[in-house]
């Protein structure tokens, strides 16, 4: 479609159109159970979106840019416009696939024309729908401007007219095939037939009937019989056939790179929006996070999104939690009984920061989150066969790069570090780790079974997973001093085997 425009660098995902493509997927991705969430999205939206979710946008400005775009996407009309646009694009892709299946030039030409027609219609439809919407984000406004410019260009209009004219001629090229006395004769017809035999079937059978399919449809290429018919028709319409052959020889790329990029990137927002709507229907709430300059952080009704998704099928209850860091508070140290919801809480906190950083909504009633350049996680590798020294070594080797200077200001999630080390050593190491991260200006959460870590450190807040009066897990996380959990009761609780529990179960 001619010359490249100055808008070539436009991206709906980042302010300057920079492509943030890191080499490997961040470690937190796995630890925060994001994979489970993204897998669910890829089932519907294709594997390509995995990449879009794998990396954080580089700057706070990018984050804000995205948040504004997502604000527009949440407008029902904009969402519907874009959703039907993606459906139309699927139609275009199907026609392209048909084109790729054939090698006979006449066939390629026809599919090419239909594909172009569908492509044009798809973007025109999007333009007219978006025009009717109030767009408040810089990103969406810029996109609409670019789209208008393209659709208004002379190159586009020429393409459009030529395609329409040819398409009309192709649609009007109908003929009658008579198969009789072991011969096949072909006659072009002026007006479309009514299907007299099918009408009889419809009338006598008293109901709608299926469309008669081409018996040769399983072969995308022309059969000899079909080709023989075309040869007769070509004699009748030499002009049209010449034109088609011409198109086949000089096929051109009508697509705009900037639109292709938009097409790939916009599903980032749409996929999350569809997930959000599905969960909202099931009673889960989402909110747009506020971003604060003063590094205060709080959230109400925070839950684990991956757990919420699996609860849709399992029906298990998902317990939400509130949290806040007061001024000067940097790290939560979370202790409490096994199976008490500690890891889930840590994960949901990580997801909170992640979705904020991605410019999307967060799984909480409300949230106020400062900007974190990065997210660091350290979860023990459960499948690891290593124990003792080996395991400690493995843990430390993953910890070291997290503690490098350039990671300052990150949000850090540490889940059960040094479990195999002696308690005395573990306590000392744990305190050092906390101190180090706080020194780097990081915030985060440290889940541990060592209550000593929760005591007497600058910037550390002690949180506890709570039990109720019957000493059953409530999955509620509250501020409070850490306490020792007796081992036996721990196990009993784990299997819900004390008297009251059994009474309840039976």
């Amino acid at each position, binding site marked *: 479609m001619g010359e490249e425009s100055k808008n070539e660098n436009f991206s709906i995902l980042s302010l300057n159109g920079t492509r943030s493509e890191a080499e490997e997927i961040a470690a937190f991705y796995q630890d925060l159970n994001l994979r489970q969430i993204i897998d669910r999205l890829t089932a519907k939206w294709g594997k390509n979106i995995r990449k879009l979710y794998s990396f954080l946008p580089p700057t706070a400005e990018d984050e804000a840019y995205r948040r504004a775009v997502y604000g527009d996407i949440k407008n029902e009309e904009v969402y519907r416009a874009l959703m039907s646009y993606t459906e139309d694009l699927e139609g275009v892709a199907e026609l392209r696939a*048909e*084109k790729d299946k*054939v090698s*006979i030039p*006449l*066939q*390629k030409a*026809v*599919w090419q024309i*239909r594909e172009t027609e569908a492509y044009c219609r798809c973007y025109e439809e999007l333009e007219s729908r978006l025009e009717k919407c109030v767009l408040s984000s810089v990103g969406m406004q810029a996109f609409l401007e670019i789209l208008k410019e393209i659709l208004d260009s002379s190159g586009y209009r020429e393409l459009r007219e030529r395609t329409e004219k040819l398409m009309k001629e*192709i*649609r009007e*090229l*109908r*003929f*009658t*095939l*008579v*198969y*009789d*006395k*072991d*011969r*096949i*004769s*072909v*006659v072009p*017809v002026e007006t*479309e*037939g*009514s*299907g*007299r*035999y*099918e009408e009889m*079937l419809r009338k*006598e*059978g008293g109901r709608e*009937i*299926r*469309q*008669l*399919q*081409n*018996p*040769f*449809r399983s072969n*995308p290429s*022309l*059969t*000899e*019989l*079909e080709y*023989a*018919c*075309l040869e*007769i*028709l070509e004699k009748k319409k030499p002009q049209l056939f010449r034109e088609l052959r011409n198109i086949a020889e000089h096929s051109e790329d009508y697509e705009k790179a900037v639109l292709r990029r938009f097409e790939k990137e916009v599903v980032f927002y749409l996929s999350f929006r569809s997930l959000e709507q599905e969960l909202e229907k099931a009673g889960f709430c989402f909110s747009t996070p506020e971003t604060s300059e003063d590094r205060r952080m709080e959230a109400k009704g925070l839950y684990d999104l991956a757990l919420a998704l699996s609860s849709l099928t399992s029906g298990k209850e998902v317990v939400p939690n509130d949290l806040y860091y007061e001024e000067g508070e940097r790290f939560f140290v979370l202790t409490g009984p096994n199976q008490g919801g500690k890891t889930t809480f840590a994960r949901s906190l990580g997801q909170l920061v992640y979705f904020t950083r991605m410019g999307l909504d967060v799984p909480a009633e409300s949230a106020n989150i400062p900007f974190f350049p990065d997210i660091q996680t350290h979860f023990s590798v459960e499948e690891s066969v290593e124990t003792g020294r080996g395991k400690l070594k493995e843990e430390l080797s993953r910890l070291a790069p997290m503690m490098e200077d350039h990671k300052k200001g990150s949000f850090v999630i540490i889940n059960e570090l040094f479990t195999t080390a002696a308690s005395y050593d573990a306590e000392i190491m744990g305190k050092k780790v906390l101190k180090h991260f706080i020194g780097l200006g990081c915030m985060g959460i440290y889940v541990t079974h060592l209550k000593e870590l929760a005591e007497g450190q600058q910037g550390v807040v002690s949180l506890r997973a709570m039990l109720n009066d019957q000493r059953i897990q409530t999955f509620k996380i509250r501020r409070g001093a850490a306490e020792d959990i007796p081992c036996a009761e721990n196990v009993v609780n784990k299997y819900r085997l004390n008297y009251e529990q059994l009474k309840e179960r039976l």
Partner: protein
Amino acid sequence: MKVCLLYEDGEHTNEESYYDSASIIKDLGLKTLFLAAAKKLVYENGEVKKAEKEDPYLVETLRSVMMIPLHTKEEIEYRQQILGDCIRHEELIRGLYRIACTVVRKWGELGRGPREKMQQSNPVMKLTADIKVIHLFCDSLSEIRTLLTDQEELSSKGLCAFHDGLLREFSQEREEYIRRVLDDISFYTDGADQEDEGKNQVVRPRIVLEAGLEDGMKFSSLKLEELSSRSTKFYKPGSTRYKFQEFMNSRIPDSFSAVKDARISEQSQILEYGIVSYLTEELKSLMEGFQTFFDRLRYQTAFYLSAVQLLRQMERIGIGWCFPGVCGRRDLEFSDLKEFVMGLERRVDVIGNSCSLKQKDLLIVTGANQGGKSTFLRSVGIAQIMMQCGMMVTAKSYQSGIFPRIFVHFTRREDSEMNSGRLDEELSRMNRIVEQIGDGSLLLLNESFATTTEKEGSVIAYDIIRALKEAGVRILTVTHLLSFARRVREESRDMPEAGVEFLSAERKDDGTRTFRMIRHEPELTSFGLDLYEEIVEKKTQSRS
């Protein structure tokens, strides 16, 4: 289309059968009954000439239908009415069953079911078979319709509704339409046959299609304008006539031969196949409502045919019958009730019993050995099962409640050795029954708990029966446990509300047994001495 000859409101394919129906069949001897019902009696000059070999499908079906109880008076009367019609119009029920069987058999031969998968490798054979199945359906439905329309005075709701349904779902117009389309595609199945018959005729199609090219120049948005099959003269390829014909045809403008080029010829056949299979699918979906129709018809008519044949057996032996009536669960009233299985086995009429229980929950039958107690119990059990599947019963009159759950606990002769293993087995059977039994159940106990001493057995029987009675179970028991019987008798003396009745095998003053049950208090002896006298001492006397 639904058949609905067993239930008015649907096919009810998931109804539950009696718990442990195997025991019911064994203890009541129902196998004899199934076999008798599956045999057609052949008459000559009004006399039974012979019985044909049994139809195994009838045996299976009757077993299955009889073991599924009906739940309401309406359901029972619905079947009784249909059975009444079938008795009056035996040829109708025979005809329906025969047609259904034929369809199921032929359809099977045409590759129905699992064999279909094998045939998928040859779509042409599959299509030909499909067309034949449509012909088969069409012919059979038409035959059924004629059969029903020819029948006058059908009075049962079920058969009338079936007839109306068929007229609606397979009307004359519908049939004509289907046959017309079958005619139009007949070239596909008839072509070859006619050639074989040497008639010098060949059936060829004329197909007119309208098409566009928007799907990448392939035939697109096809429309079928004309289709017909026509018989034309067949000329040998290469013969002068053939060449002449070919020459004439080649003068058709803008045309090409569909047979000369091998590829095009092959594709012409694909074109034929495409059109024919399109229409065949259309007809198939029109016939979709009859996919299970013939299986159901076969199953349901099998039941009525068995019942009619059973009735012919009754007539042959000379046992009278009636349609039973439904009353409350605490009542049981019948006259001249006969144990039909025994009658079938002996091929003679047997002694009938009469009985009238009002507001009773427990019937205890005691009395002389070989006095007909067990026979009496079985006769009630058999009648009850027959009644609850909508059949007639072998009595002058029979009124009873409906018990969707019937349990039998018989101690068979060969079981009655006294040892702990036997008692264990007996009680474990009882345990399984107790897990299932409840309010509104009927329990038939035949000499239960006799595998231990009379004293112990009496205690066990007393506890179990008392508990079950309190739980709302209706119990009929034949017993030798006289301590048990006396105890119940003492407790219920002058208390009609206790709901207990005692019967005893009648014994005349001279000691002869009449095999009739009479109302009688349980005594301390079961007249085993009589039997001993009859069998042992009389023989000794006659010898001496």
